[in-house]
């Protein structure tokens, strides 16, 4: 962990400019670089949030101002009542995300349990089929899925969108959960089965409590993916009252009541879309990073 930072006695041969130097110029240079990088990364978000609280006239000014001369929630008011109204779009985005979490967990928790614990007939074949979902990019499957959903009236439906998002998220979730279930000590499970618990009871009483971190990770990724996903929603949702937040904002970039782009309202929408993701990430950072490491690399 602390490979490069461990404070230890300096050897005279240690070059002073070394990046691990904790004293002298090097240290200030590192500090300055870190601060500069943080500024560059945060600036777009900060400027967008500041632009969202400019009064209507200032938000539409050209050339733009850097900082709002006065604070106003006008842009949020306009967003609140834009077309179907912000509550509708928030409810759609949130609904799709929560359904995606539910579908993903309901499908992958039992499957991961079974793949990790039981000898299955045709396990190889099952794996290959599940892997297929990982190999085929969902972007390529949207046309046939749209036709299928159109037939069964799942277009313009949150359930339909959540099914699509679940299909996207399923392989990753299954992978994370299977690894986590495999890591549960056999003794725990055996103790439960000796007591006469069924597989189902063992799953509920032993495995679920033991794999909470993995379940949180899976739910977290499902939420962020569904909340942010754009192309699938664009294809599946054609009715304005079913738009998710990214969709309605993408529409609002060109057509608004002001004639041109309502930049203030757009920034208000961006701010509202960004907040849940950043909040969830900062609160559950540990799960997010561990999920990323095991899902993408290992």
């Amino acid at each position, binding site marked *: 962990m602390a490979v490069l930072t461990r404070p230890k006695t300096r*050897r005279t*041969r240690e070059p002073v400019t070394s990046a691990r130097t904790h004293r002298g110029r090097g240290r200030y240079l*590192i500090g300055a670089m*870190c601060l500069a990088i943080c500024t560059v990364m945060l600036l777009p978000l900060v400027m967008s949030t500041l632009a969202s609280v400019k009064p209507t006239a200032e938000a539409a000014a050209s050339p733009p101002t850097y900082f709002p001369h006065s604070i106003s929630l006008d842009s949020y008011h306009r967003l609140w009542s834009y077309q179907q109204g912000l509550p509708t779009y928030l409810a759609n985005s949130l609904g799709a995300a929560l359904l995606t979490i539910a579908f993903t967990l309901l499908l992958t928790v039992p499957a991961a349990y079974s793949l990790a614990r039981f000898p299955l007939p045709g396990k190889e074949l099952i794996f290959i089929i599940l892997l297929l979902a990982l*190999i085929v990019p969902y972007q*390529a499957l*949207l046309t046939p899925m749209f036709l299928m959903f159109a037939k069964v009236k799942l277009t313009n439906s949150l359930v339909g969108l959540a099914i699509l998002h679940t299909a996207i998220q399923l392989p990753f979730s299954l992978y994370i959960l299977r690894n986590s279930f495999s890591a549960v000590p056999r003794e725990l499970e055996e103790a439960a089965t000796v007591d006469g618990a069924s597989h189902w009871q063992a799953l509920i009483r032993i495995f679920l409590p033991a794999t909470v971190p993995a379940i949180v990770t899976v739910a977290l990724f499902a939420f962020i993916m569904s909340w942010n996903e754009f192309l699938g929603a664009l294809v599946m949702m054609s009715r304005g009252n079913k738009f998710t937040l*990214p969709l309605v904002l993408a529409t609002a970039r060109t057509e608004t009541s002001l004639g041109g782009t309502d930049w203030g309202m757009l920034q208000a929408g961006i701010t509202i879309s960004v907040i849940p993701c950043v909040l969830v990430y900062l609160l559950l950072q540990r799960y997010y*990073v561990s999920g990323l490491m095991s899902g993408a690399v290992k």
Partner: protein
Amino acid sequence: MAYVAPALIFVLVFTVYPLGQMAWMSLHDWSLLTPPKYIGLDNYKRAFTDSQFWVSFLFTLKYTLLITPILIIGGYLLALLTSPNTFLRKFTRTTVFIPVVIGLGISSLLWYWLFSTDFGLINKFLMDIGMIDKPVLWLGVDADTSNYAIIASVVWKVMGFGMILFVGAIQAVPSDITEASEVDGATYWQRVGRVILPLTLRTILLVTLVSVIGSLLAFDQFYIMTAGQPRNETATSVFYVYLNSFPYLRLGYGAALSLVLAVTILAFTIVQMILTRRSNA
């Protein structure tokens, strides 16, 4: 078996079946207006002679080739800077990662505003510091300028992804190895080149593959920031599939293009999975 069945059925219905149907559609002249007509491989032949298919494909390739080195080298340098667990470096790591959790669509809208000719802060800033005399038309007028602007926005958005994975790999380098090279009097950059880089090579390869696959499938940023303009020169491969399938309703042709795209991606995914397998052994 009962436990795995729901997931299995789900994948069969919502991934395997659509895949089969896509292959089937690709052999047909299929629009929603007239009944499908079997035309063999005509859709694929048509793609070869379709200049827009090639424009999209080459543009996507160019985008991928330009952005991947920036993401990998930039992400790696950031990881070297932020891998020690001191407060400021950890804080920087967390900050650089924030845009990764924001939607690509949303970040594209944000940068659509920043790059806006008359209302964007980038032109305003560049004029204020005297780098440009009049506002630059960043998006949708010149294909290359648009590409660079979009690359800048996506680098901001996804650089943290590679960084966080590189940090994991760098921190996993055994400390006795780095210390040994330290005793030998190696400078910091010698240590990076001779010890850290070789020991994190597999992660670098994996992140490169993930980045390449993601870039080849780019859509949101171009749809939102240029809408394919000028003259569909910035319409990526996925964008062109989307245009054919939905606004143009050439579903058979769209399916054929999808399949070509999926096969291209498959090559990279297989390499990725081989590399991944090895790490589990």
